């Protein structure tokens, strides 16, 4: 086993957590990610294989599903992002590839992203200062890709009104964090 020490997208060894007037904004480096793209004409095979191999019903556009330890987001036509705990699934891409075989292309995405979870009663008030996603109408399991202070992000509703995750490009983690924190200070 290698002995290299990982750092989070925010550049530290521990996840960054801020609490602003009851709103918790937590960096979540503890997930592994792998993208899945069905091979030409193999969408059904991919969906079936995901069901049998991972127990996941790959979701339709705008949705994500969870089936512990996995979760899957729709990211594009015939494309999904699979999520699992990093500690237990550091080699997620290999696991997913094994499950899907040649039905789909699988790409490791674990470190492509930074995820922040917003938790609190005022999620809408914060998010409406950041992006045009109509979070008030989002139910648990809704996910949308949108733009936030010039950054492309996923906004996913984990618990209606109460918990949202914002996932953006890892390299701009600090800019995304700054946007979330200033918006919270402004809104709350």
């Amino acid at each position, binding site marked *: 086993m290698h002995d290299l020490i990982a750092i989070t997208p925010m*550049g530290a060894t521990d996840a960054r957590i801020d609490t602003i007037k009851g709103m918790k904004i937590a960096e979540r480096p503890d997930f592994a990610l792998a993208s899945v793209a069905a091979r*030409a004409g193999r969408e059904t095979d991919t969906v079936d294989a995901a069901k049998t191999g991972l127990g996941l019903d790959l979701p339709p556009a705008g949705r994500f599903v969870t089936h512990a330890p996995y979760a899957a987001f729709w990211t594009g036509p015939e494309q999904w992002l699979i999520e699992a705990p990093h500690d237990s699934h550091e080699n997620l891409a290999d696991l997913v590839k094994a499950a899907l075989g040649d039905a789909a*292309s699988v790409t490791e995405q674990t470190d492509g992203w930074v995820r922040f979870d917003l938790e609190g009663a005022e999620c809408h008030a914060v998010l409406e200062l950041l992006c045009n996603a109509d979070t008030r109408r989002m139910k648990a399991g809704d996910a949308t890709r949108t733009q936030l202070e010039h950054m492309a992000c996923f906004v996913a509703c984990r618990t209606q009104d109460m918990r949202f995750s914002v996932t953006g490009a890892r390299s701009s983690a600090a800019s995304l964090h700054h946007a979330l924190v200033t918006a919270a200070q402004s809104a709350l």
Partner: protein
Amino acid sequence: MTQPNRLSGGRIDTGTALTFSFDGVDYQGHPGDTLASALLANGVRLMGRSFKYHRPRGPLTSGSEEPNALVQLRTGARQEPNTRATTAELFDGLTAASQNRWPSLRFDALAINDRFSNFLTAGFYYKTFMWPATFWEKLYEPVIRRAAGLGSLTLQEDPDVYDKGFRHCDLLVIGSGPAGLSAALTAGRAGADVILVEEDFLFGGRLNAETYGLTDTSTQGWVAMVMSELESLPNVRCMSRTTLYGVFDHGIYGALERVSDHVAVPADGKPRQILWRIYARRAVLCAGAIERPIAFENNDRPGIMMAGAMRAYANRWAVTPARTVAVFTNNDDGHRTAVDLMAKGVGVAAVIDTREDAPKIAGCEILAGAQVIDTSGRLGLSSIKVRRADGKVQTISCGALGVSGGWNPNVHLTCHQRGRPVWNEAIAAFVPGGDGPPGLGVAGAANGAFSTAAALASGSTQALAALDDIGIKGRAIDLPRAEDAPLRISAYWHVPGGKGRGWLDQQNDVTVKDVKLAHQENFRSVEHLKRYTTLGMATDQGKTSNMGGLAIMAELTGKPIPEVGTTIYRPPYVPVAIAALGGRARGAHFHPTRKTPSHDWAAQRGATFVETGNWLRAQWFPVAGETSWRESVDREVRAVRGSVGVCDVTTLGKIDIQGTDGAVFLNRVYANAFAKLAVGKTRYGLMLREDGIAMDDGTTARLAEDHFVMTTTTANALAVYRHLEFARQCLWPDLDVQLISTTEAWAQYAVAGPNSRAVLHKIVDPEFSIDNESFPFMACGEITVCGGLRARLFRISFSGELAFEIAVPTRYGDALMRRIMDAGEEFNICPYGTEALGVMRIEKGHAAGNELNGTTTALNLGMGRMVSKKKDSIGSTASEREGLNRPDALRLVGIKPTDSSAKITAGAHLMNSEGPVDAAHDQGYVTSAAYSPVLNSAIGLAFLKDGANRMGETMRLVSPVTNDNTTVEVVSAHFVDPEGGRLRA
């Protein structure tokens, strides 16, 4: 302190006193006051100066359409020019100053312009100031510029923050007068998501300013009741201090919320304003109407204001501009002002009504069929001259005059998508033409329904119609009984005769005479009138002035008003602070910043960083004792060429390409052949645009039969990805190819130099051999490092040395960099930045951004032969056009100064050693230049006409703009190790 013109009642909190200052004098007002109402209460009518003639000016209106009472609000970095005193909410400690005057508001030196007004008519400046030509910049213009302008900026950075926000609703209600309230209530009760926006800090609109309105219940009581119900509904959001400034496509509305303008300084972390983007499925415009003046001689003195404004000041703010007032009107609404002011104990000297059949008012002199023909009072109105119906002229002394020429429906927002209003003779005004923005209904006075009852009814009707459109069932609500008086008006625009000036646009000083002159000189189309006279180009966009100008032009041309036409109202409805439109994207946060995982490590070593595509990249790593960047860069280059160096190349675009047709796909998007690239091999690829011009280059590695990893330049990563998706989805939709960007997922480092293999031996796990046989130049593979961490290894070289690029999951990038540094210690490994990288690639003649400048072909780059003619690839056909293949086409060459101590300037142009130096004899230009510590000489890459055949030629290198010229020799672009022995070692 007393407030001499403060009346009783009003919607202000007289229990609390607020102290404020205007032009250095302290006054008191109350919560609920605007700056204008508070100043009037204190007997101050003079609040500004006009633009051109610097005439004294007082408030004309009580709203955001105000052209006159503009002040500089606040001081220091928060100073804000051209703020309408009529909308500035009073707060304790407010400081305001008048503007566009010197030395003082009461005595303004430039008022001299007024004496010369006869010379300064519309467009006079187009006719003079032409001689001598150079005097314009030297003399005339500076004088004119200093005299022009209104308020001033401090030029300090605005310390406040501004937010942008996004809201969604089924129905957006714009304005909260009777129409707006009934619309919002109707939709709210129907369960629709409603947003109600109100420009004012009080909901209620005109109802706050009137004594008439509802007949059976208290107007104020009803407003309060409706608001409390709306506030209680979870599906309704009421936004006061929020101006709807623009209507954009497909139901996107721009609104500005003034969150903190009514306090001295925004609370910590809070924005001054929020720019809302409201996504509304439907909207109803309930913006009311704007009263219009009548032009007559000297109708611009402080104290002369709109009759409706005078009434609003009395009823809502308990203020009168003077103890004795008069009213000049052409319609019944003007009479309401007289009635209300009398009820407040203000003396009404007379009501001058242009109509012969003017109604009577008990206890008030009505002069029917009369007109105001002149006024006097230097800094404020003292008396008016009236021509009575019997032709006799009578002087009436009064401190204020309320003028009503009728009301214009506030059609502004209906024109934002070039809708044209139509003329309605009954109310002598333009009303929305029905060609407004899709999904935007209009109700109430904004639609010409002037009575309270009509406004209430139309608001509800419009709301129901809008909801029905989007499939929401609503029911009509019970509306209170309200006055339903018809507007009795007989159009009257200006008092004829007389030698003096009657003002139309009081801010820009456009008078009736100016319109006549424009007509005389054939500037008769509305747009010509506006542009020639500047009518309606003031900060109020002509809300109070355009109509009069049109009417007079109609008279002059003998056309009916609608045929003269209207100018187009454009966003914003009221001016919006530029900072609000900028939001948070300011200073260091203008754009996101992208950092590599070893950024902090590099920062700790004192690296200087440079921008590329929002990334920060280490440019060089200075060490103790180095005094110039050149020293650092030279050292880094020598270290790499001499032993080993490491460079963070994480920022290069990385695109994962999978699928059984991956090779076919690459073969089409790259100009050179890729079909036969073997697994475990990497190849350089040149990507062309369809027009045959080079777009990007990079290497692509084949990790498996159906798996490739493409690298792109840092700057083009996004554009290349978009381009590949276009090819995949639009050109060859059935190829089995999947693309995904993995730029962020992998940290990548170049380890370069003779000792690079030795260093990597200590990093790469032993089961993977990296010796020259098993891992030769251009090899690639998936490996593990440091005891099991998955990684990718590529044997590619930008520096021209024996080199590897090694990639690991980004979270381990920082650790790997430190590990490589440890492993390299025995070889004095040296971290190097983009500058050293640049020097080495120039030494090798590798093209980069400066060469791939969007105008160069493969031929120019010396890669003409790479473009395969045996296959179809993007750009190959167009690259054969004659103009791109001239015999003397530019070719990439190297240049060296004949005097090795001379420097080479990138951007300098090449000229033949003999002959003239000018554009006609231009031979080419330098794209990149550097000092090569290996050759101990400046070197450069250049595009030179027919360069391939001019090796050894001596040329002049000229750069007049930087004043350096030198003589150079044309050489091969491969300065170092042209045979490439080192990178294959």
